[in-house]
């Protein structure tokens, strides 16, 4: 199937997808309950869109397309409250967080849908290990060339989003010492990582996608698990490195930060992206995953070492006027707080120390998602 034409839309619109955990209240393990929850949600109007994910212990929610922080946040609140109420009716806890701290991948069940079954057949245990939970943010682009320009320009800021959203320190019952261990699961897929360095949509379509399709390795854009990928049918680029935060407030804030950054980058005041920017890409990505806000990254143009926390603070300040114009000042203030108070990963570690058990972490995550603590 040839690549769809890039449906250029209104620049800087944004949409959010959140993959969420379905937790059993009897033991706080993941529960294969998405068919039950989806059945119940289908019975009343849902303020957004809810779809199954690869294993039956997860669901994905999508917001509509928004331009303002307040509107996005209001819808995410509505979605969350509907979900929490439905979950309570079925004795299911809903939680954010990039990983479930102690679930065993071997116990997961693949959702009954042809695409998920195909993925499971191809990737074997990786499909079940993919029971990790991410936030994807879409930003509208006027055309394909802008999309690719933004995609590669954002590579330098990728560690910001990893560190600010990090919420997956525990895997299979133990502390991984990573702040975002989730991305390690994504990295196992052969089509993951960075997109090829192409800045023209025409070239991307004919020189890259067509060749890849000819090899038989991929059939559509869905087969790429890149950190940022273009989404031609929506006319957006999609940032996929964020862990699902523990609250919808943080999810909205991250989306607005990306929106402001894109507004800034589109002014093309910065040095244009280059293939060499990727020399330090994987190292910076690792630093953000491993150490979170305490990581040290290398600037791709100057090769200068930067404290990630400082780099984020500097960028947030630089984004202030753009956020103000877009109505996202509150979002940047929220993220400013994160750099001071610590990420969700830190919060989860604190909860482990307080409760003494991995179940205590899930309990805290479920309560935090409800926004009632």
């Amino acid at each position, binding site marked *: 199937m040839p690549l769809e034409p890039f449906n250029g839309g209104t620049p800087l619109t944004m949409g959010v997808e959140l993959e969420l955990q379905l937790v059993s209240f009897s033991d706080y393990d993941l529960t294969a309950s998405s068919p039950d929850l989806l059945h119940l949600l289908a019975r009343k109007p849902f303020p957004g869109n809810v779809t199954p994910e690869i294993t039956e212990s997860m669901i994905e929610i999508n917001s509509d397309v928004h331009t303002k922080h307040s509107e996005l946040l209001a819808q995410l609140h509505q979605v969350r409250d509907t979900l929490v109420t439905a979950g*309570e009716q079925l004795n299911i806890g809903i939680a954010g967080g990039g990983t479930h701290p102690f679930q065993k991948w071997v116990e997961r069940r*693949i959702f009954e849908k042809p695409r998920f079954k195909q993925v499971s057949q191809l990737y074997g245990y990786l499909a079940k290990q993919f029971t990790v939970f991410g936030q994807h943010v879409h930003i509208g682009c006027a055309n394909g060339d802008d999309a690719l320009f933004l995609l590669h320009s954002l590579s330098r800021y990728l560690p910001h989003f990893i560190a600010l959203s990090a919420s997956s320190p525990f895997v299979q019952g133990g502390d991984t010492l990573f702040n975002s261990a989730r991305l390690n699961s994504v990295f196992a897929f052969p089509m993951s990582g960075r997109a090829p360095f192409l800045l023209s949509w025409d070239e991307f379509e004919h020189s890259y996608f067509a060749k890849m399709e000819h090899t038989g390795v991929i059939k559509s854009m869905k087969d790429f698990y890149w950190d940022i990928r273009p989404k031609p049918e929506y006319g957006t680029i999609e940032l996929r490195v964020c862990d699902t935060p523990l609250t919808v407030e943080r999810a909205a804030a991250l989306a607005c930060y990306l929106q402001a950054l894109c507004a800034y980058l589109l002014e093309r005041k910065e040095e244009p992206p280059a293939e060499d920017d990727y020399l330090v890409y994987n190292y910076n990505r690792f630093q953000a995953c491993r150490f979170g806000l305490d990581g040290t990254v290398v600037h791709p143009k100057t090769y200068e070492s930067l404290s990630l926390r400082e780099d984020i603070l500097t960028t947030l300040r630089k984004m202030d006027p753009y956020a103000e114009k877009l109505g996202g000042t509150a979002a940047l203030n929220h993220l400013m707080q994160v750099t001071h108070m610590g990420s969700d990963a830190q919060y989860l570690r604190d909860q482990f120390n307080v409760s003494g058990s991995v179940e205590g972490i899930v309990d805290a995550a479920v309560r935090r998602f409800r926004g009632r603590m």
Partner: protein
Amino acid sequence: MPDFLVISAELAWPLAVLLAWLAGEFIHRWTRLPRISVYGLVGFLCAQAFPDLFTTEGSSPVTLLANVAFGLILFELGYRVNLHWLRINPWVPVSGLVETFATFGVVYLIAHLWGLPSMTSLLLASLAMSTSPAGVLRVINEQRSSGQVTERVLHLVAMNCVLAVLVFKVIVGFWVFQTSGSLTQAISHSLIELVASALLGAIFGTVVPAVLRHLGTLARDGTVAFALVVVILVAITHAADLSPVLATLAFGLTARHRRVAFTRTVRNFGAIGELMTVLLFVFAVSTLSWDNVLLGGGLAIVLLLARLLVKTVSVAAFAHVGGIPWRKGILTGVALSPMSVFVVLLLEQTKYAGIVLVDELAAVAAMTLFMEVIGPIFTQRALILARETAQE
């Protein structure tokens, strides 16, 4: 030269348990049928082939071990029940109340029309209210199932067991009053026993998590500590003629709700729990006699069909308002079929009071045998049809 018969008597139980386990493994692999169905069948056949070797008394070690095994299962059940959910979604407890009391009414009516005396019919009806927690929990753990049928079955079983014990004890108290004329004796066999048992369980459920939290070893030692306390609780209730069923269930329930975040106990309490289950299921049917099964077979089949129908219709009726599809409602009702082990232990325990009911209730013997073997298969099939098992 040692006496062959003495050795046989000593070896009878361990050999029966080994045989049941082996048969369970082989038949499960060939047919995917629940292992516990096979354990029961082997236990019954052994007991019928060598009736002298498998006689048990109320105070025999095997009876005590079976009670401990059942106590562990009830604790696990209580531990998984979320009382908060029952408040948020009232249709779950409503369907539980309706299915339990409708079963009581219909079974009483049929037994009475069949010509059984009133008291016998009442006892039969109270026993039919319950679903066996052992049967249901073992199948759920064996199938590693999760979903709404699984959740609802667990909660409904806990509810109907508690209600069955309450109603059964009240009727037994009434029976004692009728035969002995002593109100004091009647009350001590019903009300006091119920309250004391539940209270005992609740006290342990409060103290044990507090001690574990104080020790700071909640995550590491939870399972062992809970298992040990179940053993102690069963021993105390055994010695004091209280109800181990209520005590261990109350222990599990309180332990869960007395903790901010709880650690999972190991499913089935690990390998030792598995071993105890084989013993429990072999034991449960070894108390039944073929004569009784034959005598009560006709009525048992009618009662079981009525029970299945009433439970299924009652639960399914509230499925849609309770938030699940009709189909899952029907399957939840079907999954409530097992009734064996719970009934046997309740009756065994009543023997302490000097009342031997099994012989009076031939139909119970037949129902117990049928549902020990068939009940878990119903539960298993219902979970598979609901697509809640780990198989894909």
